[in-house]
């Protein structure tokens, strides 16, 4: 495929309206208010289904996930803000339900760890490329006396 066809392809795809992926939501769960439903969908992608591990309640078709989705929608219908609705669930089931771990003292290393590693690695990189280029220190060392003797021995053996 040439760049122009590629370009055309992307342009076509780009025309399609953005939407979020999901799976397990059943038709009868959907809230009548589209704005509220969109909020519910967004929030449920960040909440974990407790019984199926590493799947959001939006992805999971486990009964527990369904209960969570209903609970979340009830809170939204009752007029909770996003934060209040999530807090309601976290208060009952703990931080474990959050797929995005909370930012607190215990998770500082989790959130800053990757950045620290990257900074450290970049610092090493910086030191490496700042090494003096072509200075005497980096010249191949001259042979030691022992090595010179060994070389001499090899050379004479080779020619004799």
């Amino acid at each position, binding site marked *: 495929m040439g760049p122009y066809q590629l*370009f055309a392809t992307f342009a076509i795809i780009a025309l399609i309206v953005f939407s979020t992926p999901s799976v397990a939501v059943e038709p009868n769960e959907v809230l009548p208010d589209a704005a509220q439903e969109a909020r519910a969908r967004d929030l449920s992608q960040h909440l974990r289904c407790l019984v199926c591990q590493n799947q959001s309640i939006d992805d999971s078709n486990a009964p527990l996930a369904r209960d969570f989705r209903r609970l979340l929608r009830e809170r939204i219908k009752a007029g909770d803000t996003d934060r209040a609705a999530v807090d309601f669930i976290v208060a009952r089931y703990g931080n*474990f339900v959050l797929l995005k771990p909370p930012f607190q003292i215990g998770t500082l290393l*989790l959130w800053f760890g*990757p950045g620290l590693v990257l900074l450290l*690695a970049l610092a090493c990189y910086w030191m490496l490329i700042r090494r003096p280029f072509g200075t005497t220190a980096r010249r191949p060392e001259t042979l030691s006396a022992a090595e010179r003797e060994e070389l001499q021995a090899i050379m004479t053996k080779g020619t004799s």
Partner: protein
Amino acid sequence: MVAEIGQFALILALSLALAQSIVPLIGTHLGDLKLMNFGSSAAIGQMLFLIVAFAALVASYVMSDFSVLNVAENSNSAMPMIYKVTATWGNHEGSMLLWVLILALFGGAVAIFGDNLPVSLKARALAVQGMVGLGFLAFILFTSNPFTRLDPAALDGQDLNPLLQDIGLAIHPPFLYLGYVGFSMAFSFSVAALMEGKVDASWARWVRPWVLAAWCFLTIGITLGSFWAYYELGWGGWWFWDPVENASFMPWLTGTALLHSALVVERRQALVNWTILLGILTFSLSLIGTFLVRSGVLTSVHSFAVDPARGVFILGLIVLTTGGALALYAYRAPSFKQGTPFGPVSRESSLVLNNVLLVSAAATVFIGTFYPLLIEAISSDKISVGPPFYNLTFVPMMIPLLVVMAVGPMLKWKRDAIRNALTKLMRPAIIAGLAAAAIVIATFGVHAIAAICLGLAIWVIAASLAILVHRVRLGQVPFATSVHLAQITPRSVYGLVIAHAGIGIAVAGMTAMSAWQQEEIRALPVGGQIEVGGYQVMLKSVGPENGPNYVAERAVFDIKSDGQLVTTLFSERRFYQVRRFQTTEAGIHTNLISNVYVAMGEKNNNNEWTVRAYYHPLATWIWFGPMIMALGGFVSLSDRRFRVGAPRRAQPAFALAPAE
């Protein structure tokens, strides 16, 4: 009888592994050539006995010998033959046997093809390989014996996990293991080099093809797993940042780094210490991957083998191998000579930057995977680390990596000016910029990040092709000369171009899938229709369907575009009676640009079925891209430098004329 032959072969392999890990080392110590060469004989013997053991297990499965506990637990007489065979490694014991078999195959390959290796290096590498084999053979024989008998024999087997009764997942583990275990070569050669106390260009030239082959297989293995998740789990997801996925992804990331740093060792004899360390780390991460999957320490959808005793055993093996190797490294590495220096803008420099980003990315995945364990250990709190975490930490590291990928190959070794590289990348950048701009305008800026990522992906593809264009001086010299130049261009250059373009294709697919997929979920009566991504999906009929070891409900869908029938798709809900397990088979139509994905759900009281229909733009590219990358790896492997038996070239230039 067959099982006993297998058991006996396993014990013999263990004995040979023991001898293989000791005798060659005594040989190198005494300078005894015969003892050193014993390593090769032992490695070949170990390989042959493990082939016998594995064949015995496959035979037990093929014959449905339910007097073997492992067969009774994981097979069933009604299963199709292909799944009877693949069930051999669709369980803990069998897959560990496959693991050591592949380890022994690699060891045997060194013994057979390693004639041009220095004798002592070969002896030491095989001894290390023997030690790893010894550990895992002991693990199998003492904690996970696949040949344990069942008395009285079962009347029929308990069937294979239905999720694994699928061709994609059936061939996924062998590829994954070829990758994981292939990195053992990097490990063995690194430790052997530490014992030798010297590393030179020929060392890198010897290790690189093995690492490259392992990397290709691991790439294919991960891709198969992702593709399987897409079509089998029924919701079109392709990557979940699940601990088990992460387990295979970490060695892939460091393995990719190793591949590139070994290049610097081979060409410039720099980064020697670092490359050795990467070799050790990559295999250690493979072992950790095995530990994660096999111990069930991190709960995940994959953990079909959960047993703490086994976990402790593997953990002990990891501590011994990694700890031992790192101790040796700390002791020996400082004495290695520093390589030739290079300028801040140079090929070497870009490859180091590649390593910086890849290793940081691997560390990010590592932190994310193990942090929940850490938190649980030090407090009563439990946390989850899911996709939102990786989107904020891992993905941003990949963006500069793509830039390095496009610029790096344009730079000269040793020293270059950034302007030279950028001039060559001008045209690719213009194409990419225009495409990205068009997308931003077309979407009214709805998805700026997606536009940037797409632009980068296109740039990487175009920049990779530009390498070839510049190499053959297309348009600057007569066409015939260009053709000639293309013919004499080494295959490794083609490999680079193909593999890098593959990354670009994969990134484009991932971006489009994350930003622009569409879904429709509706309860449909027969004859009902939903519209998604310009396609009309009509539920034509629903009826029963009987498989060999399952019953199913099958929905037939007509897919139309502008009223014209495009295709007919089936989606099934299968129920496997023996395991009492339900799976969903999705119907997928692809024209390579986009997929229509249909999955049926439950029936409600109004005689309607839940139907999920998705439009997945560029979805296939997510898997085509990595497959193209692996292809690039294989093309590079066929380069004459790596070919077995190819005449060895004269020493590379830098050995004759030391730099500076």
